[in-house]
């Protein structure tokens, strides 16, 4: 609790009509996972609003972070609500491809 977590990881939400974008910066790892969950929770629950995260300034993500994205994908999918990622840095895209989470971010046709 003594470290300055804001220097390490930050999540800034920009909401406008019908859409929320969360801009992540720094390192998303085990130590800040609870903070990230807290930021995302109310947004994930609002299925009326399109939800996106922008990863342009994200320097690092670990399997904990990828796990949170996966749980958001599942929640949004079952609520029939959108969730997308924007501006994914090369190194992070590589991890998305390796783990297989990448395919869930691809534009999905809504067959319903």
């Amino acid at each position, binding site marked *: 609790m003594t470290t300055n977590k804001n220097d390490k990881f930050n999540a800034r939400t920009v909401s406008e009509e019908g859409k929320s974008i969360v801009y992540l910066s720094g390192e998303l790892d085990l*130590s800040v996972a609870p903070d990230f969950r807290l930021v995302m929770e109310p947004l994930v629950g609002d299925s009326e609003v399109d939800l996106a995260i922008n990863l342009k300034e994200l320097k690092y993500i670990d399997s904990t972070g990828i796990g949170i994205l996966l749980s958001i994908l*599942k929640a949004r999918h079952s609520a029939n609500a959108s969730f997308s990622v924007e501006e994914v840095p090369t190194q992070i895209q590589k991890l998305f491809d390796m783990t297989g989470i990448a395919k869930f971010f691809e534009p999905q046709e809504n067959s319903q």
Partner: protein
Amino acid sequence: MKADQTVTLNLPATADYVDIVRLNLYGIASKMGFSYEDIEDMKVAVSEACNNSVLYAYGQEGGLVEVVFGVTREELTITVKDEGVSFSLPGNEPSDTAPTLHDKDLHDVEIGGLGFYLMQALMDDVSVASESGKGTQVILTKRLTRSEEKV
């Protein structure tokens, strides 16, 4: 391979110190001449090994994680060791493969298990030794490929 030189870190087994391991890894690996991409790969792998110790080794009680960087001319080995309750990892047995999401639908996906897969995918060699009551040791190896080596 016996390391020519070693650097040892002893850290509290809490999530707040895992970034310190990444910082040290960065320093050592760049000194050795690893590429940016290799260093990024190793950062992820070593953090996953530390996460396992932080999450599973000691429960509520605090403990220590020891990280040893073994440096040779050819490779970097990173040993992550705890003395907590040993944990079993998917992929620990040679016949097992760590799970990925590639062949799964979203509603079949289970969260977790990706960390060990990433270690395997990002390093040249991963070995896990755990002995009940004596904790777990994960050894990660990355070989140095010199693109402009003189003949």
